[in-house]
Structure formats: C-alpha cells, structure tokens
C-alpha cells in the first residue's frame, strides 16, 4: 500500500513539476537526417556527425514544484566539437510541436556559424544569432516565436534575488535584442539554462590522447538489441593492471555511487542484461571508460594476437610502404603503413557450392547478354545493308496511300565493346564474424557474393580481380590476394574465396591505396574500384572515427585522380552517416538486407556498366 501511494505521489508531483510536453515532443531520431543535411547546407563541416547530447546538471534555480519532485536538475544542451554536433535527444519544452521542431533547426543553424572563440559566451551567441538571421532572414519570425516561448517558461526576474535577477535580465535582453549585451555579471547561482543557445562550457572529454595507444575494439558479438543515439560524456581513465579486482579495501564511510569509476579489473564479470545496463548508463553523468583495447566479450571470443608464422597465410613478396593522411595535422605521412600481400595457405581448389549453382546459372545467362558481340541494328538511317522489312513496310504504306513516316531503311552492324576492368576489395575485418541471420555470418554472405560475382563477370568477359583486406595497426595491413587480373577464374580461385576468414580491423585507406595502384596499372578505359564493407574504417590505434574516415576519403580522392571510379557496397545500416562524405551521393549503395547481397552485387555491377 505504502509503495502504491508513494508511486502515485511521485507520478503526480513529477507530472506537475515537469513543465514538459512529452506528447508534442520531437525526438532527435525523427529529424536527425534532415538536420544533418540542413547543417551542411548552411555551411557546416560535412565531416561532422550528429549525436545526442547527454543531459548535464545545470545547478540553476528551479521552480518549487520541481525541487519537491526532484526533477529538472539536468538539461540537454547542444554543442559542437571536432567530431560531432550534439543535439538534445528530444525537445519537449514547448506546448507546440512546431516550436519544438523549430528549436532543433535553430540549434543546427546556430552551430553552422563560426564565431570567435575568444569572445565571451554571451557575446558569441548573440553574434551567431545575428549572422544566422542576416544570412537567413526567413528565420527571423521563427526566432521571435522561439524567444517568446522560451521567456514564458523561464522564472521571471522579479521572482529572483537581485544578483540572479540582473543576470536573468541580461540573458533576456540578449535573446530579445541580440547584439546589445556585451557582458554578463555572473551571480552566485548559475543562470537558468538557455535552450536557444549552445552549451556555455561544452564538457570535453578529459583526455583525447590515450597513452595505451589502443582503440575501440571491434567486437563481433551479437548485434546490440537497442541502439541509443545518445553518446555519453566520456572521461578516460587508466585501467588498473593485473590486480585482483575483488580484493578491495572496504571503507564504510565512502560508498561508491554508480557514477564513480571503480578501478576494478573484472574482465569476465560482465552483466549480460543489456537493458538494465543501458538504463543505469543513461542515469549516469559521465561514463568512465578505460581503454585497454578489449571489451570482455571480445577478449573471450576472439584472440587478437597474430597467428604464428606457421599458421598464417603465406606472404607474397616484400611488404609495401604506404602513406596515410592525418587530418588533425592535415599532412600526408609518407611510408606510414606497411602492407603485406598474403595468399591463403590452406586453400584447396573446389567447385561452386551446390546451393549457389542455380543462382549462378541464372546470373551467367543474364550476364552473357552483356558480352561484347557484333550485332545488327534494324531500322537505321544509315548502314551497310538494306533493311528489307522496313523497305517492304515503306512500299506497302506508299501503295495504300497512307502518310508515310520517316523510316530507317538500313541495317547496321555495331560492335559494343566493353573496355572495362573491375577490382573488388572486400572487407575481411573481425566484424564480419557477426551473424546476420540465424545461419549465416557476414563473412559467409561476402563469400557467396564473391563467388556469384566471379561467376557473373566471367560470363561477361570483363577483366576483374578480387582482393580482401584487414589490418592490425599500421605495421600489419593484410592484403589478401584472391584473384589477380591476369589469373583465370578457376577452382583454385574458388578455393581461395572459400578460405576467406574474418581477420582483424579495417584500415581502409591503406587497402584502397594498394588496390588503386593495382587497378591503375590496367590499361582499360573504364576502371571500377568496388569496395565491399560492413562498417566504418577503424583500427586499434588512432585510426578510428574521423581520422579513419578522412584518411579513407583522401585515399578515394587519390583513386579518382588516377581515373578510377570508386563505388562502395555496404551492409552497414548507419552508413548514410558517413558514406556520402566518402563516396558522394551516387557513389555507394546500402544493402538493407545483408542476405540479399550475393544476388544484389552482380546486379549492381550490371546496372553500373550497362
């Protein structure tokens, strides 16, 4: 009973205190894509992604009811850093849905403006507001509506102590007449958060460089049940070395709360209850993440050490040194990566798997239509021979005194040649070990795709090569030889395709550079670089996030300069966040259902080269 009453009271008081309007709230997910495009259209950095901002404690005065209910302590504000534009995960401040939505676009518009970092926060906001309104005068009425609605929900200055009242007045004036407030006298208590402006002190991750040199680990476990767009404020903390995690000094006076990082080393003691963990994580102010390169799942399931020489694939020739682009420094680092070409040691020639035979037969028939042949075109205006059908028709039309239309009376022989080379580069990183359905992994899908692709291309006679890649830091970029341009598609090649297995990480830039140089040697007029992947570029060292994406982008730009046409086929459903930046709007395709990839891939190729 007590519990029931307590629950009722909680619901009542929180409902009364929350000046929020959940029913008309707008979720970030609903507008994330348009917001990102809007951001870029207004001149924002195209490399930035959009993610949800964590709620932060603002410490400002709250309304009495809110204090009683213990709500309204935290607020989600927007800000921008080098990697992402953070926006509130939902906005439900106002009673009108349109206003909530407008606020999103307003925040995005503000974020697209560059202002002087040295200026005080309040001046910068007004400056950004002025610049935005000047460039997009249509936003003016929207801004006015937003300001009016915002002021209405703020605690009025009359109800505040003198110092806070002055502070509040300054903010109100800055909102109403941007450009008029030069400074703000800070009161003892922080001011009430201003949802129209970005975060005053964007919480930056404590350290961006980590001493361990380890990166996020790529784990191929089952796909997370629910993805939350919200990223947590992360502070990096060193993991304790091999101490027994369970031997902990007990100090009665300091109870650990959830949000404190407890230096406990418990690699196997992982809670599998994803939902609880997620809930707890969302309640925390900041997540402390120690980066020792492996999540417990990864460490259990995969051994990330390189195999011993005897077990490994056979290296082909000397390693190749390749440059890499560092976007932070904006320099090309020469001879930065070492790439080793490998050939599967345990590949035995084999036939096409029985399950694929029917599809392969069908594809071969379809692709034979693409083979270069000399054939006759009828009804031509010009040609080597008379088109008797057309001639007969013309004569009969004339005889029946029908109005004669213009006819082509010749037959012409044409030679449709396909002067084309294609290199397919498949991502063989560890993430391809993940299951896409009950019975197949990504790597199985890639294997079938490679087989069917080869069958189809053999039917057209187009020259093609197959390579795979994975990497383990910059010293070990593994470039798997599957089929060269000169080699014929044979049982041996099928054996190598069947032998592909998930490797390490995805240093895409180096692999693309190597593939480009191989493809560029082909003396064909059209050269297609087809990249088959399942995720972002990523490696153990700094090669992650924007670093990896920018390096890949530079590698692709180089490929285009060599006269190659890069095209990406991916099964990553979030690929539209970053692939447009790499390949351009028409330069990639996302296969929604990975199991369809083997059938889709040859079809895509046919479409592109028809």
């Amino acid at each position, binding site marked *: 009973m007590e519990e029931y009453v307590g629950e009722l009271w909680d619901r009542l008081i929180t409902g009364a205190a929350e000046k929020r309007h959940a029913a008309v709230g707008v979720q970030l997910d609903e*507008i994330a*894509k*348009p*917001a*990102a*495009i*809007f951001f*870029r*259209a*207004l*001149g924002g950095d*195209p490399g930035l992604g959009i993610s949800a901002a964590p709620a932060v404690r603002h410490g400002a005065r709250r309304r009495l009811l809110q204090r009683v209910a213990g709500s309204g302590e935290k607020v989600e504000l927007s800000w921008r850093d080098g990697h992402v534009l953070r926006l509130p995960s939902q906005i439900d401040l106002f009673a009108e849905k349109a206003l909530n939505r407008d606020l999103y*676009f307003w925040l995005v*518009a503000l974020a697209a403006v560059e202002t002087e970092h040295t200026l005080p926060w309040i001046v910068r906001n007004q400056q950004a507001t002025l610049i935005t309104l000047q*460039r*997009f*005068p*249509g*936003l003016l*009425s*929207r801004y006015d509506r937003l300001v009016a609605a915002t002021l209405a929900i703020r605690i009025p200055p009359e109800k505040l102590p003198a110092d806070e009242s002055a502070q509040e007045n300054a903010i109100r004036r800055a909102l109403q007449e941007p450009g008029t407030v030069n400074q703000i006298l800070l009161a003892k208590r922080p001011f009430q958060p201003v949802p129209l402006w970005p975060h005053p002190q964007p919480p930056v991750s404590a350290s961006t460089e980590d001493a361990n040199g380890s990166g996020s680990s790529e784990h191929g476990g089952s796909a997370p049940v629910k993805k939350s767009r919200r990223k947590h404020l992360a502070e990096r903390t060193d993991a304790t070395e091999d101490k027994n995690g369970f031997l902990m000094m007990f100090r009665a006076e300091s109870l650990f709360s959830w949000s404190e990082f407890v230096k406990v080393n418990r690699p196997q003691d992982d809670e599998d209850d994803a939902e609880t963990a997620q809930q707890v994580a969302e309640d925390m102010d900041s997540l402390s993440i120690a980066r020792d390169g492996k999540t417990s799942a990864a460490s259990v399931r995969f051994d990330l050490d390189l195999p011993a020489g005897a077990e490994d694939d056979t290296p082909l020739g000397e390693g190749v040194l390749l440059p890499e682009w560092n976007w932070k420094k904006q320099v090309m680092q020469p001879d930065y990566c070492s790439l080793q070409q490998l050939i599967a040691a345990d590949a035995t020639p084999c036939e096409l798997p029985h399950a694929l035979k029917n599809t392969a037969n069908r594809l071969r028939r379809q692709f034979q239509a693409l083979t270069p042949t000399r054939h006759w075109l009828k009804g*031509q*205006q*010009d040609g080597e021979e008379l088109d008797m059908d057309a001639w007969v028709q*013309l004569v009969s039309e004339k005889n029946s005194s029908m109005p004669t239309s213009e006819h082509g*009376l010749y037959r*012409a022989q*044409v030679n449709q040649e*396909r002067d*084309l080379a294609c290199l397919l580069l498949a991502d063989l990183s560890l993430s391809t070990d993940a299951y896409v359905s009950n019975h197949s992994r990504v790597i199985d899908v890639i294997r079938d795709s490679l087989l069917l692709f080869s069958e189809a291309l053999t039917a057209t006679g187009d020259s093609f090569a197959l390579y795979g890649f994975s990497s383990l830091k910059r010293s070990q970029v593994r470039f798997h030889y599957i089929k060269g341009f000169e080699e014929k598609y044979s049982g041996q090649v099928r054996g190598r395709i069947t032998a592909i297995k998930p490797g390490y990480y995805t240093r895409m830039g180096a692999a693309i550079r190597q593939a480009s140089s191989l493809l560029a040697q082909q003396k064909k*007029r*059209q050269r*297609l670089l087809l990249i088959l992947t399942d995720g972002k570029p990523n490696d153990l060292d700094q090669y992650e996030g924007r670093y990896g994406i920018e390096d890949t982008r530079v590698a692709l730009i180089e490929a285009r300069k060599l006269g190659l*046409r890069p095209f990406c086929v991916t099964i990553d459903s979030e690929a539209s966040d970053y692939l*447009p*930046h790499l390949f*351009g*709007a*028409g330069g990639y395709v996302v296969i929604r259902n990975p199991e369809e990839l083997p059938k889709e891939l040859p079809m895509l190729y046919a479409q*592109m*080269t*028809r």
Partner: protein
Amino acid sequence: MDTQASNTPVNQSLIHDPPFYQPSGDECELFERAWKNHLPLLIKGPTGCGKTRFVSHMAARLHLPLYTVACHDDLTAADLVGRHLIGDGETVWNDGPLTRAVREGGICYLDEVVEARKDTTVVLHPLADDRRMLPIDRTGELLPSFMLVVSYNPGYQNFLKGMKPSTRQRFVSLTFDFPTAAQEEAVLVGETGIDAMTAKRLVSIAGAFRSLRDHDLEEVASTRLLVYAATLIKDGYDPVRACRAALVETLTDDPETAIALSEVVNATFGR
C-alpha cells in the same frame, strides 16, 4: 554589356536579338578569337549553368547561323553529316546539321556530346584538327570549315560514357561553373525582372544547396532552376512554394533530404 547591346535598337533590328547573357569572365573574348581562327571549342560545365545560352548569345552577337544538335544514344554520323533520302523514284541528298553549318559558315553546336555514340564523334575528327575539312564520302565533297562547338557535363556521365581522349585533344576548352553570387543575382534580375532582394535570397538558397554537392545531392541547383523559381515568383506565386516546386522537389526524391532542403527555403523566405 549585353543588356546594353540588347537595349540599342540598331542591334535588335539585325539578324537576332542576342539573348541575355551575363559573362562571368573572358569567355566571350575567347569565343570570338576561337571563331576568328577557326578553332573548335569544347565547353564543359554542370547542367543549367548557361552553356547553351552562351553559344546562342555568341552566335547572335557574331551574326552567325547556329545549328544545335542535342546528342543522344542513337545519333549516327549520318544524322550529323546528311544522307540520301528516298524520294519518288530517286534518291535525294539531304544535308545534316553539320554539313549545313559548314556550307553556311555558321556554328554547329553539339550539346551533351558524350551522349552520342563513339563512332559518331569520330566524324568530327577531320573537322576539328588542322585539316578542318568535312569529307562527305557519299557525295565525294570536301567542304571547308566553320566553327564547331561541343559541350558536355563532366559530372553527369554514365560509367561507360566518357569523351575519347583523341576527340578531346582537338578542342580549345572552356570550363563553365555557376556564376558568383553577384553575377547570378544579375542573371536572375536580367532574365526574369525579379526584384533584387528576392534574387539575393534565391541565390543564397542555391549557395546553401551547392555546398551539398557530392554529399547529399547528386546534382545541385542550377542557374536555370533558379530562373524557373524566379519566374514563378515574378508571376505572383508564393516564394516558399515556388522554391519547393522548382528547387527542392526537382533536386531530390529522398523525403528526408527534401525536408532539410525545405527548411533551408523556410529559413530564407520563411514565415
């Protein structure tokens, strides 16, 4: 300069009224020099940036007849050069646009030349190098040259269609891009008579859309589309709806991209 030219009554009474063209550099001078020296000209640039308008403007200015051929997949050499047509009991030779342009000493303009079949463009080779002759096998004629102008859109090709390097190498090339903001405003005002403020806003929308090139949009807002939007607005249509019809819906099929683009329009003209 062009507006002045078309305002003088003397010029108007001559062959054509030169259509409005706002030069963005010295392309007019280059065209005149190319014509004087019988050099073939290759114009490349994105769709709707004024390639065709430029050629017709220059033809009118130089008082030359202009033969425009929009190239397509099925365009044969005979379509350009000419062919024997079967008449009543006899065959009649019929000049193609290329031959006609040569005979009249005019300009032959091949629009989107990469769309034409490869074997077709080879017919241009003797015209476009120092021989500058058009041999017509069927009639055994050899005609002196004239001016050949071809255009294409580099960003807008099929994977298998490109321009043969051997064809390319025979032209003086001129790259067109969208004009600067000020020039584009002048184009809108000159072309549609819209007020300067609206022109400025339209150009600002176009600028925003163009920063999405190669990222979210395959093709960006061309000057031609802006002219369409301006025409609708000039006609009294609501600016936001005009932009949505002429720009947003034309540029994208993706609903989410359309929302974002509409937001840009709202942010410029909005209420």
